[in-house]
């Protein structure tokens, strides 16, 4: 593990930052307000090779590691958490198919997602199964060489723009052992988006409720064996926690930058406000929290790349980075004062974005359960 970017990471960072500043920064505030997702942003990211960073080269990706991938996510989040989450959620589908899918599935679905032509998604949660994911009720019933899926899924990121979703459904009895994973095309008959959530933030990234009514999926679209779906989902979420940590670091960095700029510019009582310790110490704490976050992120990503166990470290990174970013962004609004509270500056948006990071991809309560169990089991 390195404390700083290597050559590849520095290049990825510069490339993503330039794109985010030029293509996303000018539209992000208005699009967040109007809840507009632009697929062409993803396509352009794809042309730059930024939508398939961890996907093997044989399937159109860059074949790089998570330590490289998170640099891209972080730089997107520095400008727009929504687009960072979009790429990261497509990444979930990519990694599930790449790690557990058949050769046929990989060939069919990975290249369009890696090129940015298609976004993907992941469907696990339901109305009554959130943190308790293994209690899900969506059913996949075997019918010849197909499965027939029925049920309703909640909190599904970009289900309205995705080409495919990896959907978790019950093929067997109660609990985790009865769950299987399927690659489902959203154009399938019986698939529909039934509702779009109105959220506090992250509004460019649409959060959908989906309904599956007798959706027929070829048996060959199952990932792994029957009953292996929950393991697939949990492995994916372990990786997902690393990318959410990267979103947190990016949002935190954006918030720190806007705070420093304001503190150097704004004068009250005849001085720049950074000359007051009430402000300068907040800045010092923000930087310290951000650096600690970045190091935990790098550790989790590096362990994964080295093929070592990383699940606990991913949970620790997710818990710490998202809590830190909540604090950093709240303080950013405070430093900008009245201006920070308005939509003329991004500080309040960063704060609204930070809150969801503590909730999705496993709430921070669930991260604490995972971490504490690992200590006492």
């Amino acid at each position, binding site marked *: 593990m390195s404390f700083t970017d290597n050559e590849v990471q520095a290049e990825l960072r510069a490339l993503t930052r330039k794109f985010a500043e030029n293509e996303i920064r000018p539209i992000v505030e208005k699009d967040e307000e109007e809840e507009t997702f632009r697929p062409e942003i993803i396509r352009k990211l794809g042309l730059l090779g930024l939508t398939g960073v961890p996907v093997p080269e044989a399937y159109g990706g860059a074949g790089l590691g998570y330590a490289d991938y998170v640099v891209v996510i972080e730089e997107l989040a520095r400008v727009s958490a929504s687009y960072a989450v979009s790429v990261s959620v497509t990444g979930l589908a990519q990694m599930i198919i790449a790690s557990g899918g058949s050769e046929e599935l990989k060939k069919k679905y990975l290249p369009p997602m890696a090129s940015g032509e298609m976004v993907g998604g992941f469907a696990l949660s339901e109305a009554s199964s959130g943190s308790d994911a293994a209690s899900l009720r969506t059913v996949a019933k075997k019918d010849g060489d197909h499965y027939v899926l029925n049920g309703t899924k909640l909190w599904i990121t970009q289900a309205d723009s995705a080409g495919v979703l990896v959907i978790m459904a019950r093929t067997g009895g109660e609990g985790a052992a009865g769950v299987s994973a399927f690659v489902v095309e959203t154009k399938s008959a019986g698939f529909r988006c039934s509702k779009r959530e109105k959220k506090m933030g992250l509004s460019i990234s649409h959060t959908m409720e989906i309904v599956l009514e007798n959706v027929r999926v070829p048996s060959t679209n199952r990932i792994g064996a029957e009953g292996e779906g929950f393991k697939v989902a949990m492995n994916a979420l372990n990786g997902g926690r690393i990318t959410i940590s990267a979103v947190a670091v990016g949002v935190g960095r954006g918030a720190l930058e806007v705070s420093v700029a304001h503190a150097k510019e704004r004068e009250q009582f005849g001085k720049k406000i950074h000359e007051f310790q009430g402000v300068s110490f907040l800045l010092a704490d923000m930087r310290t929290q951000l650096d600690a976050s970045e190091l935990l992120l790098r550790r989790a990503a590096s362990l994964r790349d080295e093929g070592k166990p990383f699940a606990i470290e991913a949970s620790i990174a997710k818990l710490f980075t998202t809590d830190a970013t909540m604090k950093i962004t709240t303080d950013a609004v*405070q430093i900008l004062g009245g201006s920070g509270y308005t939509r003329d500056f991004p500080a309040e948006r960063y704060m609204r974005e930070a809150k969801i990071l*503590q909730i999705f991809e496993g*709430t921070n309560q669930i991260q604490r359960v995972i971490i504490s169990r690992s200590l006492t089991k």
Partner: protein
Amino acid sequence: MWFFSDEQNMLLETVRQFSRDELGPKIEHLDAEEGFNRESFFKMGELGLLGITVKEEDGGAGLGAVEATIAMEEMGAVDASTTLSYLAHAILCVNQIGANGSADQKKKYLPDLISGKKLGGMGMSEPGAGSDMLSMTTKAVKNSDGYAITGGKTWITNGPNGDVFYVYAKTGDTKRDVSTFILERGMKGFSTGKKFSKMGMRASPTGELVFEDIRVPATARVGDEGGSVKMMMKNLDLERVTIAGISLGIAKGCLETATQYAKERKQFGKPIGAFQMIQERLAEGASQYAAGRALTYSVAKMIDDGKLVGKESAAYSAQAKLQAAQMATKVALDAIQILGGYGYTREFPVERAMRDAKLIEIGAGTNEVMRLIIARQMLGDVANM
């Protein structure tokens, strides 16, 4: 609170019912659309809330800081936006005219403001004068007919739609040469500038006021020329303790929603309220809320009983606001966390509560300024070395 009188408890019940019936059904839509619940002000007028601190002989309810804070808390629990606009109207404008205005000014302005026919506000902050408010540059230049007022104000609650404004302007060159004028929409040279789009408090319009050579007679001035700093500070104390009431209300609303959710939502085969982490957040929030309530109402009562004067009053009010504002943001953030994904959506009021709560750490003096005031009271001149 243990010391509330029967009348105060009755007021609490009345405002609670009003908030539930009149404010509750509209706020979600108004927050989304950045609207304003203007009609509720007429009903507040009927209930006697708009002139709550004005003497009865001037048409008010003749009540004090405790009652005003009760009103803020009960309305704030349902709709912090409208409550903030209520505060700007009742405390920053109506209270000030009642306390400092001449007999003619009271006669001219109070009836319509107390009935709700006209909406009031106050003009103090300027783009370059926020925390450092005495560095304001809006000028009132004396002439043979009265004054010519030029400049502008920003962050004005009710600015985009108010009718009557209690405005501070410089009438001399030193920091303390501050005078007050009552300005009205419709006066030549009076206009509204930008309206801000905000994170929260979105149903309480905030905007800029622009003054281009507004000519007013000397009778538009409130009190003595150059004599406003003391009145301004005294009103800030009342503003801070009553705005703490909005924070209390926000926290109360969040605790109620989160407690109900923790009882109903089941995961892993039991209500999430059975998990210690949820219990811890609820217990912590309830305790911090209780502490905020005890402090805020005690300070309000000390103000009403005349037990606080000068800098001591400022420091106590600042402590109440600082504690309550920080507490409410924390309680709201935790309520969202308890509700999880649902808490992040607009289907539950806690995400709005969090967006609203943050404002009170900034408006009416930032947390940083509150700490400054408290530390100055403790340290005296040492604080300014």
